[in-house]
């Protein structure tokens, strides 16, 4: 129950952060990605602030040796830069550049009632499912 409440709280903070930073507005995101056009640096500020805060926060959190509500940290174990990482990231980037949406903002925008997200999110879930299914078959 603690873990569930903690996750709920973290999710809420994250969602509010996305909205305050306007990452839920695809035109703001596309404005950053449009380096040859009327450039909007907002995303750089958001990422910079987020990474700096998380770097410090992670350092402090990991110092405990274990999470408050679990026995171990669940960190990603993969270390090798492989084809899946490169191909997956490239494919993701194209989709992001076409729409201005990545997973978090898309879900938030859906809850915010934006029509674009209503189409994007199911397609996103389908894409993820497709990748899972094709991996298993391999």
């Amino acid at each position: 129950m603690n873990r569930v409440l903690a996750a709920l709280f973290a999710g809420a903070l994250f969602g509010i952060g996305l909205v305050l930073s306007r990452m839920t507005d695809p035109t703001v995101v596309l404005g950053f990605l449009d380096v040859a056009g009327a450039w909007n640096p907002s995303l750089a500020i958001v990422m910079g602030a987020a990474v700096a805060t998380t770097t410090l926060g992670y350092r402090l959190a990991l110092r405990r040796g274990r999470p408050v509500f679990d026995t171990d940290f669940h960190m990603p174990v993969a270390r090798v830069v492989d084809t899946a990482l490169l191909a997956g990231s490239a494919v993701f980037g194209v989709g992001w550049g076409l729409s201005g949406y990545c997973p978090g903002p898309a879900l938030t925008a859906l809850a915010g009632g934006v029509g674009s997200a209503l189409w994007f999110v199911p397609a996103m879930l389908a894409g993820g499912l497709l990748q899972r299914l094709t991996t298993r078959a391999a």
Partner: protein
Amino acid sequence: MAPWLGPLFGGILIGLAATVLLWLNGRVAGISGIVNGLLRPAPGGDRGWRVAFVFGLMGAGGLAMRLLGQSTASPAPLPLLLVAGLLVGYGTSLGGGCTSGHGVCGLARLSKRSLVATGTFMAAAVATVYVVRHVLGAAP
């Protein structure tokens, strides 16, 4: 209010959220990872916190958007939105992360994989926008 204050505070909040999730639950706040963990049949006990996180994200975020009157749509036409969604869903699953998982949490951990992933999806996104807007001349 200066235009950079929202991005600054928003970014700090995102960082705090990621920190809280790691500090309390020991989990990385990568949205695609959290959602993909729901799509994949998970062992008992793993689903609860994921559902809760998404609930919080959508609940608080959705409410905030409505209160602030944020409703800007994506400029992409419907068929492109569907394709983009498929690509984002497929790509983040294959690549093991997205802007939050690799871009924020991964970089904060000084992960080489995340550095490469972030550079790759940023480059791909920038290139895509360039082609769409400045080569094909499609409306922004």
